[in-house]
């Protein structure tokens, strides 16, 4: 009887975080044994919705039914009891502990670890056999590659006998073939009647693995579609409410002299693992060089190295022929040399949320004489400067003394943009310029970037949004696993071709 009932049905779920309404009257039905996709912009409310289903957050309003039965899920404990397992966007692992300890956590089977542990090892061994999820139970989780860490997360869920498995952007951190394995696993699980909910930004994944797909926008559930009966284009439209990136009108580029040259660059991160493996490229005045790639393949590190925030292990970065490591080692020096930077993460880097808009508006340029002579800082000067910028970039609300955190994502981004552009960059490093930004703002930002290009600025555009790369770039390079897997021009490539390069497949696709 309950067999017909949907595995999950959420009705009119509401959730606020302070000012932000993350979920607005959301309904969702997921059929037993199906793979159900959820797509939506950053900040659309996907994770929130699933976290509510998993009992991590409690909804302000709404009903949850599992297999047709009305349930109250006030904590993950209750979710687990209802056979729900979740692989979070940000892993929930205890790094200093071993795999087995992580898997056992919360399911120890007894006050003493010893006996539960034996059982757990057996269970792990079985799962590994059944689904090819091999893993060393005694490895320290913190020392495992992300791919395996995710495997631990999945194992945690399966070991607890999850009938419903939620995965929040699982492939964001995976290599393409890792992703393939994962999807195989998901199919296998679905085949056994388990229900899968898959959150992702990658529409081709949706098309590839899901049976149904739901689209969220600004906290609302705008559509649930039969995957077979829809298309990436349609999904994209639904996600943003109107057709985005109607290909940006831009004239041909007139590249000038080489501005920035990167030679044999090698970067290790704090833990010493190789992030960028000996890459070379150059950037000309008056062109936009798009850098495509799945998040976490070295773009961020490259960007920060160029901006002087982290130091490369090997190699050189030349500006107009001279080595920046010598002439301008620090971020401050880079700025004075005209290398400006719109960081990927405006919340953490680009702005200080606790500062007023005016204070955020001079971040990085605080020591300029324009803002006060000698050691002093002139509040008046800063305020005046901010007011003009707010006009020029239509930043709302027009209140220099409003706390930065009170501005919406799009307006926050405009603050960063205005600040960097107004300081006449020679080279502009741009990271994810439109992440979590509304459509209007996106167009505004794109127009500005093109204008800068035409004004002769050399622009390096790092984005995970292929469409953005395609429509803005004059040249495109693709990074995968820390190396450049190919260079293209928008004319000579397409999503599929770039996708393959992003997946590390280097031979040219027909």
């Amino acid at each position, binding site marked *: 009887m309950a067999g017909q009932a949907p595995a999950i049905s959420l009705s009119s779920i509401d959730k606020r975080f*302070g000012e932000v309404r993350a979920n607005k009257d959301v309904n969702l039905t997921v059929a037993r044994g199906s793979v159900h996709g959820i797509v939506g912009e950053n900040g659309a409310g996907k994770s929130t919705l699933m976290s509510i289903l998993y009992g991590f957050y409690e909804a302000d309003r709404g009903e949850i039914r599992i297999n047709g039965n009305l349930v109250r899920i006030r904590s993950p404990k209750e979710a687990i009891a209802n056979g729900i397992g979740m692989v979070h966007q940000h892993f929930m692992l205890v790094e200093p502990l071993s795999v087995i300890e992580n898997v056992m956590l919360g399911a120890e089977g007894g006050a003493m670890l010893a006996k539960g542990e034996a059982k757990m090892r057996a269970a792990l061994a079985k799962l590994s056999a059944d689904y090819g999820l091999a893993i060393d139970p005694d490895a320290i989780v913190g020392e495992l590659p992300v791919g395996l860490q995710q495997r631990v997360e999945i194992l945690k869920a399966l070991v607890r006998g999850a009938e419903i498995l939620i995965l929040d952007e699982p492939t964001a951190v995976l290599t393409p073939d890792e992703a393939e394995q994962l999807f195989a696993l998901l199919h296998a699980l679905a085949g056994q009647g388990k229900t899968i909910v898959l959150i992702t930004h990658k529409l081709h994944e949706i098309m590839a693995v899901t049976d149904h797909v739901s689209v969220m926008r600004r906290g609302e559930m705008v559509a649930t579609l039969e995957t077979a009966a829809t298309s990436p284009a349609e999904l994209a439209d639904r996600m943003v409410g109107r057709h985005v990136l109607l290909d940006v009108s831009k004239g041909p580029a007139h590249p000038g002299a080489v501005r920035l040259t990167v030679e044999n660059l090698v970067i290790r991160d704090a833990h010493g693992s190789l992030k960028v493996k000996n890459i070379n490229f150059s950037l000309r005045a008056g062109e936009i060089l798009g850098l495509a790639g799945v998040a976490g393949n070295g773009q961020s590190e490259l960007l920060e190295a160029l*901006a*002087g*925030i982290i130091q490369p292990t090997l190699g050189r970065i030349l500006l107009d022929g001279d080595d920046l490591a010598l002439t301008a080692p*620090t*971020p*401050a*020096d*880079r*700025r004075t040399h005209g290398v400006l*930077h719109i*960081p990927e*993460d405006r919340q*953490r*880097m*680009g*702005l*200080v*949320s*606790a*500062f007023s808009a005016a*204070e955020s508006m*001079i*971040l*990085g340029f*605080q*020591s300029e004489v324009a*803002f*006060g002579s000698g*050691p*002093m*800082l002139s*509040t008046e000067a800063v305020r005046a400067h901010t007011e003009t910028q707010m006009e020029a970039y239509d930043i709302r609300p027009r209140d220099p003394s409003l706390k930065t955190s009170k501005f919406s994502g799009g307006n926050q981004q405009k603050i960063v943009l205005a600040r960097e552009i107004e300081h006449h960059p020679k080279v502009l490093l741009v990271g994810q310029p439109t992440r979590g930004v509304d459509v209007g703002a996106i167009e505004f930002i794109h127009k500005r970037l093109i204008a800068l290009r035409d004004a002769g600025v050399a622009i390096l555009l790092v984005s995970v949004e292929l469409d953005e790369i395609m429509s803005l770039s004059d040249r495109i390079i693709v990074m995968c696993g820390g190396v450049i897997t190919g260079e293209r021009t928008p004319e000579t490539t397409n999503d599929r071709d770039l996708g393959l390069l992003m997946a590390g497949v280097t031979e040219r696709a027909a």
Partner: protein
Amino acid sequence: MSAPIELPKWADVSLVPVLAVIVAFLVAGLVVLGIGESPVRASILLVQGALGSGEGIGYTLYYATNFIFTGLAVAVAFHAGLFNIGGEGQATMGGLGAALICLKLDFLPWWIVLPLAIMGAMAFGAVWAFIPGWLQVKRGSHVVITTIMFNFLAATLVVYLLVNVIGKPGSMSPETRVFEASAHLPYLHEALAAFGITIPQSPLNLSFVIALVASFLVWLLIWHTKLGYAIRTVGHSPSAATYAGISIGKITMITMAISGALAGLLAVNEILGVQGRLLLEFSSGYGFIGIAVALMGRAHPLGIILAAILFGMLYQGGTELSFEMPRVTRDMIVAISGLVILFAGALDGLIRRPMAGAFARLLKSEG
């Protein structure tokens, strides 16, 4: 210091600390009741003792001077996201610095000795805070722990020096000889007497003026200089600071040094102003109460001055109180400070959440 709860700024800086103090006093009142004395009478005696006489006011401001210095020290560190619990040790070292100068140079005229001694106090205090800062930056050891350790290190070091090196030979207590008059920072009653103004005698000395100047300078530094901007950036968002090309390490060390120098100034009041010699434990807990002062003053110099005066009143009033009510010793004040720290710094949520709620409702009802 805790999870931010949106409140109108004015309420945040005024109502919250005031309420914290009120709650602290209510609790303290219960304690007084518990030991069988009348809280009302105690409070009256306390206020009379603190403000009832010219001398009382003098003492109040004299204690307040100490609290301004240590309060500023803690506050400056707060702005850089640092917690300097080392005020005690930094003040002790400040005393050492001042004393060394005086012992060597107090044959010189005051206009040479005093400036040097004051600088000595600041320098030693600064160094004693700079080292923990340096250790955090270069070696990753957290200042909270190192400053605590440095408090004890300062204490033992000064004991050793007073007993074996700079102490007065054959003295009954470990202390230096009394400095020459040239090394004595004039009492306010002396200074004003010079202008024919007579006020009651008290330990209140020119350090109080120095404290006010220091407060102004700190205000200028934090909100109207580029260094201050950098300090606050580091305090609010280290990652943004890095992005902005602000060296977190440099700022940390500079801030700690400034903080320590301010704490060191406590010695100017105690050693140069009052004791006229270096002796043990002259910092007697002012360093810790500075934390309460900074929290209450919401790390703003003006707030700190007010909070410092309040604690000055508690100290002076407390002493007078213990004359009249021997059962209510001045430990009462330590307890009250603890309560204030608790309610203004750690349990402020208890006060802020309801208030935030009230304001929210207020705004709604207004439309």
